[in-house]
């Protein structure tokens, strides 16, 4: 076929600049993000939407914190843990944050191993990530239990503004749900990697689609997002 579908882009000397590449991609047919698969594009767009969910949660939290007429409880006292007779402020949160951030590291390594087609290393690193994530959720459950035993409820607490408990349970609960879903997704993808589904092109149970090692990266995108959100929750809820 001699028919030209699109006029050729004007050629310039040397490698195309960042902006030229950007405008070239958006002016192209078929794909606006050249080379990005449908799944990966979907995950990015979903995460953009989810950013707005967490953004609204956090803005809502900041607004009620300013609107309430009662003093806000002191986070470093509330979240202190008595270890060996000394009150250590924020110690549990520090460990939780450390665990979650570390899991981002193992996740990144899993993605790298996935693209090298190291089946076992990928699966094991993903499992490690999932275990770290589950540990985080476990510590969160411990924190919730401790606060509930101390009398904190979504509608009341003994230290100050009611909204403290409301926002705490709502935001950490919503984030914890995200982490839990992430752990489940990681476990499922790790099983598929371990079984070699992505090497032989086995079809998915629900969607009947074949997956690829890119699925590891897509699960990773979600995981890093959840970690990043935690950083904001940590900063705005625990440190403020």
């Amino acid at each position: 076929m001699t028919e030209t579908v699109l006029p050729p882009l004007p050629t310039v000397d040397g490698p195309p600049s960042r902006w030229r590449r950007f405008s070239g991609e958006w002016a192209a047919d078929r794909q606006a993000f050249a080379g990005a698969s449908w799944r990966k594009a979907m995950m990015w767009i979903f995460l953009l939407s989810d950013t707005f969910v967490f953004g609204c949660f956090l803005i809502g939290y900041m607004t009620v914190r300013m609107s309430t007429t009662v003093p806000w409880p002191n986070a470093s006292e509330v979240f202190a843990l008595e270890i060996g007779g000394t009150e250590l402020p924020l110690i549990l949160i520090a460990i939780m944050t450390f665990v979650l951030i570390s899991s981002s590291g193992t996740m990144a390594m899993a993605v790298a191993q996935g693209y090298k087609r190291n089946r076992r290393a990928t699966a094991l690193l993903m499992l490690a990530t999932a275990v770290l994530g589950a540990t985080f959720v476990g510590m969160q459950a411990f924190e919730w239990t401790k606060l509930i035993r101390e009398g904190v409820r979504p509608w009341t607490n003994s230290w100050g503004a009611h909204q403290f408990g409301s926002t705490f349970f709502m935001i950490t609960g919503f984030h914890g749900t995200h982490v839990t879903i992430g752990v489940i997704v990681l476990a499922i993808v790790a099983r598929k990697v371990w079984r070699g589904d992505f090497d032989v092109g086995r079809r998915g149970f629900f969607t009947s689609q074949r997956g690829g090692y890119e699925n590891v990266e897509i699960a990773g995108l979600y995981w890093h997002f959840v970690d990043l959100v935690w950083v904001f929750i940590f900063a705005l809820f625990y440190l403020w």
Partner: protein
Amino acid sequence: MVDTPIGAAGPLPGSEPDEAELYHPHSWLTRYVFSQDAKVIAIQYSGTALAIGLVALVLSWLIRLQLGFPGLFPFLGPAEYYQIITMHGMIMVVYLLTAVFLGGFGNYLIPLMIGARDMVFPYVNMLSYWIYLLAVLVLVASFFAPGGPTGAGWTLYPPQAILSGTPGQEWGIVLMLASLILFIIGFTMGGVNYVVTVLQARAPGMTLMRMPLTIWGIFTATVLALLAFPALFVGAVMMLLDRLLGTSFFMPMIIEAGQRLHYGGGTPILFQHLFWFFGHPEVYIVALPAFGIVSDLISTHARKNIFGYRMMVWAIIAIGGLSFVVWAHHMYVSGMNPYFGFFFATTTLIIAVPTAIKVYNWVLTLWRGDIHLTVPMLFAIAFIVTFLNGGLTGLFLGNVVVDVPLSDTLFVVAHFHMVMGVAPILVIFGGIYHWYPKVTGRMLDERLGLLHFWVTFLGAYLIFFPMHYLGLLGVPRRYFETTGLGFIPASAASLNAFISVVAFVVGAAQVVFVANLIRSLRHGVPAGGNPWHATTLEWQTPDTPPRHGNWGARLPVVYRWPYDYSVPGAAEDFVPQNQPAHAAGAAS
């Protein structure tokens, strides 16, 4: 590169091979019920939305019964009245308009118009519909719950929405919020699909700037929805917690019947911000697809290229962007810092600029066109007029000093019904008359269509034009009864009765439409593949209605923009997008 085989013949360039695989149905159940075909999902979405929309239409009759003939119908008490207006508003805005434009038109037209085989995630797309259906069922369930549906007004403002004294405080509000949360989850599943399909699954040759404006409108509206619905989601979750767990996100300290409630320290204004951060983009989630569809209808039926295509695209994007910075103009009467009022009034009025560009371009497209006054075209022209009317009153209301006295009157009711009630509904009708031949292979009956059009269009004006006047007289909105209010002249009551009678006639005319839809399935004139001689890809499918996978063995290849009508020197007065340059004569 030009010939793009599918399936066994090899991978698609630029995408992974497995992504082109379609799930082929194995049974009647997976073909027609749990279908992963976007076209079937579109029909499911539209059918469900139109069905619940008819419920909302009947609710509007009940509103008019009370307003036109107060006291005549003993089954309409104040509580029932508030429940009816609440459900009417919420159903029409969210469950009908949003669902039809994005779930219905979006699912049907996106893959066909951009030359894709299906949505990129058919399974998720199917889930989207079933969760939407569940949301509708939860909403309907609130009609039968103890205490009935919520009567908080469609804006669900706290604190009254969850306090005793508001009808539906027991179950209605809980079911309403749960239904909204489900709707948003379901919509997000569909929304990521629409966006990724448009961005990543276009046919060879289909650049973004060769997409029909319908797709631009639906695409931009979906992006808005993905960014705006989170605010409603968060608001709904918080209010659900306030109602069920007794938290105080939106609840200040309240004394009810001499008793201090356990609420305290929350801020009702926060809900208003969250609600309208969703609520204003929602107006454009409904309007932008309508803009797009109208552009295509006008160009096709006036046999003329759309005027200023690029400006039309940029206007859509500009309106979409601006719609996120105007939300507080819904809250002037809530009270705000005058500087904020100034800011939001300014941004609101700036939206008039891209909107005016669009209206001028539609008119200039019609100018000296070969106008065919088909039923879709009539609806499209009616839209322009109605939208212009509603938009101009929007310019009044965008100003703080004008809005404050008019805000709680029927003037506002008339304004938003014109601009985002009647106008988009006219486009939905026009779109259905236009694409029904592609969906079913048969034309809708034109005589019934004309009857439907004229009664609906003229009736809508007879209903809502007098309402502006009533609003300026000071007739308040939301009031159950206005008789005996000294500041309202007695003649207002007779005008209200007149409006009610027209509303019943217009409502009844929709029966003609539904009958036409059903009758033409069997008895319509066979349409052929391209009855309107349109250029866009959905009219160039090998089969009508298109089969699963849309395009047969090969994807279409796009050589031109979608508006090559009446090209000088071309053999016919339209050149399809997939026609190569040499085949179109001098038209290249």
